[in-house]
C-alpha cells in the first residue's frame, strides 16, 4: 500500500522536483549576476559603491532565509502583485547574491596584482582587463567554493514551501495529508530525491572544474 501510494504519487513528487529546480536555477542566476557585480564593485569600485556592497551583503547574510521569504512575500505583495514563486526567487536570490559576492571577491583578490598591471601596461582599459584577464582566472577558482553555495541553495528551496510555492517539500505535505500518514516513508523518498538532485549538481560542477582547469592553476594540493 505504501509502495503503491508512492508510485501513484511519484508524478507529483517529480513535479515538485521540477519546480524546485526552476526556483534553484532562477535564484542562482540572480545571485550570480548580482553577486559578481557586487564583488567587482567591492574590489574595484569607488568607496561609496564599496560601502553599498558591504551594506547589502551584511543585511542579506544577517537575516534567516525563512524570514526573508516571509518579508518578501507578505511585505512586497502588499505593494506589487507578485507570485509566491517570484517572491521566493527574489528573497533567496538576493541572499544568494550576498554569499556569492564573497566567493567572487575572494577569488578576485587571490589573483596576483601583476596580472592587472600587465593587462593595463598593454593598453587595456580597466573594464577590459577585468573581463579578459581577471575574471577568467577568478571564476575558475570560484567553482570549488561555489559548489557549497549550490548545495546550500538547493536545500534552501525547500523553505519556499512556507509561502506556498508548490515545490518538492510542499508536494510531500500534500501527499501526507491526502493519504493520512505515511510521514516517514514520504519524507524518506523526498530526502532521497534531494540527495540525488544535489549529488548530480555537484558531480556536474566538479566535471566543469576539471574541464576548465589550466596547468598551474588547479584546485587542491600539488606534489
Amino acid at each position, binding site marked *: 500500500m505504501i509502495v503503491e501510494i508512492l508510485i501513484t504519487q511519484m508524478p507529483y513528487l517529480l513535479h515538485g522536483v521540477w519546480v524546485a529546480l526552476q526556483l534553484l536555477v532562477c535564484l542562482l542566476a540572480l545571485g550570480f549576476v548580482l553577486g559578481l557585480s557586487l564583488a567587482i564593485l567591492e574590489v574595484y569600485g569607488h568607496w561609496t559603491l564599496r560601502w553599498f556592497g558591504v551594506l547589502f551583503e551584511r543585511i542579506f547574510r544577517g537575516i534567516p532565509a525563512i524570514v526573508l521569504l516571509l518579508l518578501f512575500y507578505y511585505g512586497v505583495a502588499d505593494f506589487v502583485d507578485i507570485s509566491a514563486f517570484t517572491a521566493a526567487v527574489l528573497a533567496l536570490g538576493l541572499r544568494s547574491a550576498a554569499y556569492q559576492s564573497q566567493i567572487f571577491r575572494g577569488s578576485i583578490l587571490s589573483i596576483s596584482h601583476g596580472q592587472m598591471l600587465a593587462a593595463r*601596461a598593454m593598453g587595456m582599459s580597466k573594464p577590459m582587463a577585468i573581463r*579578459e584577464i581577471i575574471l577568467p582566472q577568478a571564476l575558475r577558482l570560484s567553482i570549488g567554493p561555489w559548489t557549497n553555495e549550490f548545495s546550500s541553495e538547493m536545500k534552501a528551496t525547500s523553505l519556499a514551501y512556507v509561502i506556498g510555492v508548490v515545490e518538492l517539500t510542499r508536494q510531500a505535505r500534500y501527499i501526507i495529508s491526502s493519504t493520512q500518514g505515511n510521514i516517514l516513508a514520504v519524507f524518506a523518498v523526498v530526502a532521497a530525491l534531494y540527495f540525488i538532485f544535489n549529488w548530480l549538481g555537484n558531480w556536474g560542477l566538479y566535471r566543469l572544474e576539471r574541464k576548465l582547469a589550466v596547468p598551474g592553476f588547479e584546485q587542491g594540493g600539488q606534489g
Partner: protein
Amino acid sequence: MLLQVENIHKRYGTAEVLKGVSLNVVAGQSKVIMGPSGTGKSTLLRCINHLTPPDQGRVLVEGVEITSANLNKMREKLAFVFQDFNLFTHLRAVDNVAVGPRKIRGMNKVAARDLAMRELERVGMVERAEAYPAELSGGQQQRVSIARALAMEPKVILFDEPTSALDPELTGEVVAVMKQLASDGMTMLVVSHEIGFARQAADEIIFMDGGHILEQGPPEQLFASPQHERTRQFLSRIGEGGAGA
C-alpha cells in the same frame, strides 16, 4: 625624438624617490639604466608608462604627451616587460601574445594568431606555443612576454630588470633575444645590471643614484672612465669598470 621624459618627480610619503629625472631616446636607440637598488630606476620606468603616475613632469611619445585621456592609446606604443614576467596564467603562450592584438587592436582571430606565431618565432618559442605559462621555464616565460610586447608593435619597449628573476643559465637566452631586438633597430629602455647586454647592445648607459641621473654616456666611455665616484664604486661592485673595463 621618439621618447621624451621631462622632469619626473615621484614621492612616496616623505621619501622623494625621483627628484626630477629627464631623458630622451631617439628611434632605434637602446639605453640601459643602471644604479644601486632603491635609486628609483624601476619607479622611473613605471612613471614613464604611468603604471605609477608621476607627481610632476611629462612623458611624450612622438611628441604627444601622455595624459589620463589618451593613456590606453599611448601605452600601446610603450610596451612593458616585467621582472616577474606576469604572463596571463590562464592563456597558452600563443594566446598571451595574441590577446593584445585581438582585444586591443581589434584584429580578427586568425590574423592575431598568425602575428602571435611570428612574434614567438622571433623569440624562439614557436615549439612551445601551446604551453601554459606554468609549463614554461622562467627564461621561456620571459621570452614569451617579450613576444607579447612585440605583438603590440610598440614604438618603445621598457624592460624592468628582465633577467633579475632568472638564474645565469636562463639569463643568457633572454639577453640573446634582447640583443637581437636591439640590432633589429627596436627602441629600448632597459633597467638592468646585465653587463653583457649593456656593453654590446646599448647605445648609452644612464647611471642613476639617489633619485637623480648622475651621468650618462656610451658604454665604452662610462665603463672605462666614469666621472663620478659613486659610479666608480657601483661599477666595481658589479665587477666592472676601472682598469679591467
